C-alpha cells in the first residue's frame, strides 16, 4: 500500500467514529503525527470537522429518503438510530440513494426499539419507494402484442412486470401513515401523529407518470403478481398463487381477466413473452 493510501485508509476509519475524535486518544495521536493543525484548530479538531460532516451529510440523506420512519421515531430516537446504522453499515456506493438499503434489516435486528414491527414496515416501504423512484423507464404494454398471443400459449407465457413495480406485504397501514407524517412535516405541525393499530395489507408500490402510488391488492391477486414478477410462467404462477392464498385454482382463474385488465391499465405488466 502506498503512503497516501495508508493515510487515507486510517482517515476513512476515523471519519466513521460516532463520537468526537478529540476525545479519542488514537485519533489524537494519528492527527498529531500526520496533520498540521494551525493556531486556531489542533490537528484532531481539523479531522473532527470532516467526521461531523460525514454524519450530518448522511443523516440528511436518510431524512430525505425515510421521512415516515423519521416521523414515527422523532428527532432524538431517529438520530440515535441513524448514527448507529452509519457506524455499522459502510456506505459503498457513489449513489447516496443506496445508503438506506440495509435500514429495514438493521431495524429488525436492533434491540430496545419501541414499535419495531411498525418501523420495519415503514422502512421497507420507504426503501421500495427509493428503488421505484429511479427504476428504469419502460414502455407500456403494446395491445397489439397482447392480442397476438395464441389462445393456447397463455399457460406457458411469461408476463414481464414494470421495473418500477415492487410488491410488499405489511402488518400496518404504513402507506396512509406515511402520507400523514409527511403532511405534518410539511405543515411544520408539532402535534404528534397517532400511530395506527395493526391492519395487514398487500401493497403494490408503483411509479406512474412520475408519481409513486401504493395500490392495495387482494391477497390472491398479490400472490399471483408476486409469482409472475419472480418469472414463473402464467400457468404455474396461478398454481403458486392459489396454493399460497389458500383459494381454489378455478376461483382464481375466474378473477384473472379482471385483475389483468387493472394491471395492464396501471402499467404493472409491460410485456408478454411467449415460450
Amino acid at each position, binding site marked *: 500500500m502506498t503512503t497516501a493510501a495508508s493515510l487515507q485508509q486510517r482517515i476513512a476509519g476515523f471519519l466513521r467514529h460516532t463520537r468526537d475524535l478529540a476525545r479519542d486518544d488514537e485519533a489524537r495521536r494519528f492527527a498529531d503525527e*500526520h496533520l498540521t493543525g494551525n493556531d486556531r484548530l489542533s490537528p484532531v479538531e481539523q479531522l473532527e470537522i470532516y467526521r461531523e460532516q460525514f454524519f450530518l451529510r448522511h443523516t440528511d440523506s436518510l431524512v430525505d429518503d425515510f421521512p415516515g420512519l423519521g416521523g414515527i421515531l422523532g428527532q432524538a430516537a431517529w438520530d440515535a438510530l441513524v448514527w448507529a446504522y452509519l457506524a455499522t453499515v459502510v456506505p459503498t456506493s457513489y449513489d447516496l440513494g443506496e445508503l438506506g438499503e440495509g435500514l429495514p434489516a438493521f431495524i429488525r435486528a436492533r434491540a430496545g426499539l419501541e414499535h419495531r414491527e411498525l418501523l420495519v414496515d415503514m422502512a421497507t416501504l420507504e426503501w421500495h419507494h427509493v428503488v421505484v423512484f429511479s427504476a428504469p423507464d419502460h414502455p407500456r404494454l403494446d395491445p397489439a402484442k397482447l392480442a397476438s398471443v395464441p389462445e393456447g400459449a397463455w399457460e406457458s407465457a411469461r408476463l414481464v412486470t414494470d421495473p418500477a413495480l415492487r410488491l410488499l406485504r405489511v402488518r400496518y397501514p404504513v402507506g396512509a401513515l406515511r402520507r400523514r407524517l409527511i403532511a405534518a412535516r410539511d405543515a411544520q405541525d408539532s402535534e404528534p401523529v397517532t400511530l395506527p393499530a395493526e391492519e395487514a395489507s398487500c401493497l403494490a408500490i408503483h411509479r406512474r407518470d412520475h408519481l409513486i402510488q401504493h395500490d392495495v391488492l387482494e391477497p390472491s391477486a398479490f400472490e399471483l403478481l408476486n409469482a409472475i414478477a419472480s418469472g414463473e410462467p402464467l400457468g404455474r404462477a396461478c398454481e403458486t398463487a392459489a396454493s399460497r392464498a389458500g383459494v381454489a385454482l378455478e376461483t382464481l382463474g375466474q378473477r384473472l381477466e379482471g385483475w389483468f385488465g387493472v394491471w395492464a391499465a396501471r402499467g404493472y405488466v409491460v410485456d408478454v413473452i411467449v415460450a
Partner: protein
Amino acid sequence: MTAARLGLPDLGVGIGLRVPHYRRLFAERPPLDFVEIISENFMGVGGRPRYHLARALEAYRVVQHGVSLGIGGPEAPSERYLGRLKDLARLTQTPWVSDHFCWCGAGGAHLHDLLPLPFTPELVRTVAERARRIQDTLGVPFALENTSSYLTYKGSVLAEWEFIGEIAERANIGLLFDVNNVFVTAYNHGLDPLEFVRRVPHERIVQIHLAGHSNLGTHIIDTHDRHVTEPVWDLYRLAIELAGPVSTLIEWDDQIPELEVVLAEAERARAERERALAARAAGVSSLDEERIRAVREAARARPSSTQSGGHGTRQGGPRESAGASDDAPEAAE
C-alpha cells in the same frame, strides 16, 4: 502554446440546476447561458430525475459536474461509475465533464465528501495518470476543481497551486477554478488567496465556480448557502483578468432562496466579469491597492467573526428523492 480555455467555448454565466427551482425554470425559462447539473443526481436510468433532465436539455445548454469520482483515492474510480458517467455525457452533450482534486473513500467505503489530498509527487503521478485515462474513456474534455479544505497534511511538499497545475499539465486536462474555494482554503490555512489565483495555469481554466461560505471564526465551511462575499468577487475579477472570458457558474446548494435571488447573483457575476474583461483589455487591474489589502485582510482568520453554520454541506443541493410530498394517494383494486 496552450490555447485559452484549452480551446473550449466560453459559455457565459450560468447557475446550478437545483430541485426547488425546477418548476419555474422549466415553465418560465429565464435567460441563462447554461445550467450545471450534478452528474450523480442523473446517473440513474429512469424516473423523475431523467424526466427533469430532459426538460433542462430542452431549455438550456447543460454542463456536467461530478462530486463522487474520488480521483485521488486508494482505489481507482470504478468502471461502473465511469460507464454511467459516459452514458450521461453522451445524453447531455456536455462540452466538458468535471470533478474534484480529492478523494472520497477508502477500503470500499464511500464517504461522500471531497477530502483533501496530500500535495505530494506520488499523488501528482497517480492523479495525472488517472485523469488522462478518464478523459480518454469519457471521450470529452475533462477538468478537475480545486476543493475547499479544512485540514492540511504534514506530508505535503508542494503548494496547492503547484499540485493542481502540475497534474493539469501532465494529464492535459482543464481546471475548474473555484474562486470561493481559494478564499476558504486561504482563510483556513493562512495562505495568500491572491497568490493562489496568480499561480494557477490560467490558460487551463475552462470554468469558474462562485458560491457563498460560512465563517465560523476558527475556520470557514464551504456551505454554498448565501451570497458570494466581496473578497471573492475581487478574486473572481482577478481570475478573469488573468484567464480572459471563462464560463462562470453560481452555486447555491443550501438554504436555497427564490429563483430571482440566484438569477440576480448570476447578473452580478456577469457585471463583475465585464468589468474585469474591460480592465484586461485596457491592460490594467480592477483591483487597486485598497481592494488588495481588503482581500488579504478578509482572508486572515479572526475568531470573533462567527456566522451561523454547523449543518451537513451538500454539493449540488438536496437530491430529488422519493421522500417528496407529492406522491399519489392510495388506490384499491
